[in-house]
């Protein structure tokens, strides 16, 4: 009984202490300038696993080589949480990281609150502009002309295809020939029909049409909402992508499988799907999903030309304790030399074209039968279009992807699905001030 009383008291004491500590922590909010690194000797950087080189971050933690006395400590945040966490800290004006990595899709969602981030031009960003891909650089700017992001990695796209299946169906199978002969989406669909009739095991061309819809969209400089906040999702550039996707379904060349599901894994490793159109970062996923198909895959230019799908930025929040030092760190971390290192270590595709010429990037990949991925992705990264993303892109395109899934899985009438998608997008956007 005696020791039990003590332990209870100790428990109470511990919880009281915990609450006291929490209260102290809470009252600390806003005491300094709101930075998560206030009172320490380093700057804080939030990122998610795989978005930055671990080796370079370990170096930065000990001391950034180019900046005497500067230390940067990276904190890994789960990639599903980082956006809400950044928003929460910004709303609370407390524990905001000095620097944070932002995903491609999310940078624009911060445009309405662009003042929360520093304009990197005021720190001399223009001086390094010519080191970076032009479209990526332009994507760092808000509509009002402030530069709130700094280029991290790119996501150039390519056509991934199974050379063995293409050859046995009597289609061109050498990457150069495929690029020359299947150079439009219409010809790509025709190749899909050939695969279904002559290919071994009648493979499908794609796992689902969502990826094709996505890539055709990204080939267009216009998306769903323009820079004047007008809904343009009912116009021909979207309709073109939609019609092409519906046509693929009509011709039965889509396996109608959601990516990332067990069915998808089975189809990819079992040779039921002969190609896919996606970005460079999908390589590792494919290698994990279908290790047995190693050597059978090839890469070539996407029909109707390359696009960019994904990639990230680094931002400096307005709570950054030392903007000059933070920007010097960015120039070191994301300069051509270290982007090359990040590619070798983490497969982060550089946004500095100078790195593409480096022999270190020209390594043959046995998964692609000894082909060098850079030969396809390098030119693709340089040719990707300049695309404007509005803050409401995901809100606007969600109904279109959903309705496409409805046509694909539930057999909904395509015209009805299109009308529903346009109506839903318009209604939702009108409430957000998009006309």
């Amino acid at each position, binding site marked *: 009984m005696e020791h039990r009383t003590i332990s209870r008291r100790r428990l109470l004491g511990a919880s009281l202490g915990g609450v006291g500590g929490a209260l102290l922590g809470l009252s600390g909010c806003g005491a300094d300038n709101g930075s998560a690194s206030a009172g320490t000797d380093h700057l804080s950087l939030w990122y998610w696993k795989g978005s930055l080189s671990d080796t370079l971050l370990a170096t930065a933690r000990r001391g950034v080589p180019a900046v005497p006395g500067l230390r940067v400590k990276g904190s890994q945040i789960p990639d599903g949480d980082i956006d809400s966490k950044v928003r929460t800290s910004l*709303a609370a004006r407390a524990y905001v990281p000095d620097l944070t990595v932002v995903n491609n899709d999310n940078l624009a969602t911060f445009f309405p609150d662009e003042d929360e981030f520093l304009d990197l031009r005021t720190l001399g960003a223009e001086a390094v502009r010519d080191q970076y891909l032009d479209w990526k650089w332009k994507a760092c700017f808000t509509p009002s002309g402030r530069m709130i992001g700094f280029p991290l990695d790119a996501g150039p796209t390519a056509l991934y295809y199974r050379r063995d299946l293409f050859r046995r169906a009597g289609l061109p199978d050498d990457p150069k020939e495929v690029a020359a002969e299947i150079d439009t989406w219409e010809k790509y669909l025709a190749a899909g029909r050939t695969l279904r009739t002559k290919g071994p095991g009648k493979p499908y061309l794609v796992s689902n049409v969502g990826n094709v819809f996505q890539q055709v969209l990204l080939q267009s400089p216009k998306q769903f909402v323009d820079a004047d906040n007008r809904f343009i999702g009912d116009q021909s550039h979207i309709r073109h992508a939609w019609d092409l996707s519906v046509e693929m379904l009509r011709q039965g060349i889509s396996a109608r499988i959601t990516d990332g599901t067990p069915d998808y894994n089975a189809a990819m490793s079992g040779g039921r799907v002969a190609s896919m159109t996606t970005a460079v970062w999908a390589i590792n996923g494919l290698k994990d999903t279908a290790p047995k198909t190693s050597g059978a895959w090839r890469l070539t230019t996407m029909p109707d030309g390359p696009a960019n799908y994904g990639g990230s930025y680094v931002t400096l929040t307005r709570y950054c304790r030392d903007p000059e030092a933070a920007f010097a760190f960015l120039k070191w971390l994301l300069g051509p030399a270290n982007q090359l290192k990040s590619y070798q270590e983490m497969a982060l595709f550089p946004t500095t074209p100078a790195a593409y010429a480096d022999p270190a990037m020209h390594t043959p990949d046995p998964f692609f039968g000894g082909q060098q991925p850079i030969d396809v992705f390098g030119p693709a990264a340089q040719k990707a279009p300049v695309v404007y993303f509005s803050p409401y892109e*995901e809100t606007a395109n*969600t109904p279109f992807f*959903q309705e496409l899934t*409805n046509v*694909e899985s539930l057999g909904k009438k395509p015209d009805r699905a299109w009308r529903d998608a346009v109506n839903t997008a318009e209604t939702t956007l009108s409430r957000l001030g998009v006309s």
Partner: protein
Amino acid sequence: MTTVADPADAGAPAADRAERADGRGSRAKAPGGRRRHVGPLLAISPFYVLFAVFGAFPVVFSLYLSFQDWDGIGDMRFVGLKQYGWLLEDSVFWHSVLNTFEIWFLSTVPMLFLALVLAFLLHSQVRFTGAYRVAYFIPNVTSMVAMTVVFGSVFAQTGLANSALRLVGVDGVGWLSSEWGIKSSLSIMIIWRWVGYNALIFLAGLQAIPTEHFEAARVDGANSWQTLFRVVLPQLRPVVLFAAVTSTINGLQIFTESQVLFQSTDVGTTGGPGQEGMTIVLYLWQKAFKDHQFGYGAAMGWLLFAIIAVFTLINWRLVSGSDREDRGGIRSLLRRKGARNGR
């Protein structure tokens, strides 16, 4: 067990406490008396401080938020009741309400029935009861995210469920690609998770029934089914209603199963094909945390609260009604429910 159930034991400290509370009330007026409260108040402070910060404040703030337009960072804009108005016109929201109720019904009814049967079997089982109890409870404490990934493979086109169906000569079902397939697979996951938990609650209720009742039933020649429906069920009514209320509250907040099953990190797949797996809470999450419409999400949260409150009220009426007709059993319950529907 006995100390909790024994009214004499439980009553004594309660009366004692009441006395002391009275005494304290009169003494508080004396100078310096207030200091006496500091110790006890401090001792219980972990609860109310934590509750105020993480419970009460978010609730009040979300009510305030539901009248604002806010993207989570910038300035809030007061919009009055507009968010609620938009919500009432939102077909996806109503679809999610319908889905939630369909999934709730599909899961709760078989789940409670199964739990009752399991509890009855456990009650008569003599050997390994402890092992069974642990086994039944394990699904409830397993990570739902991990289990959903496993169920994702089970319900895949080429998964375990379809292979089993093919063995008995039935064609594969589109578990994750058809309206009722999606709802059934979500319901099965909910049943799997909660059936053991409710069985244990029923078992506790069963053990409180005096053995004389069972013996009397046996003497009268009742078989197992008759014992279950004529003896056990009427006695278990309060426990069944408790299980029904908690299942309603849990069932109307289904989220994880659907969110993980349909890869909600991708646009366009949230809720699955036709958004047949879109539940109220999943839609709330999508609007607030994916689309950054926090005011809209807050309004949805309060409508969900209203829906749950209505259901709890109905349940509460059913429970309080049992005092008046204490011999009516489930049948009188059904009769009253029928009468309410008829009105």
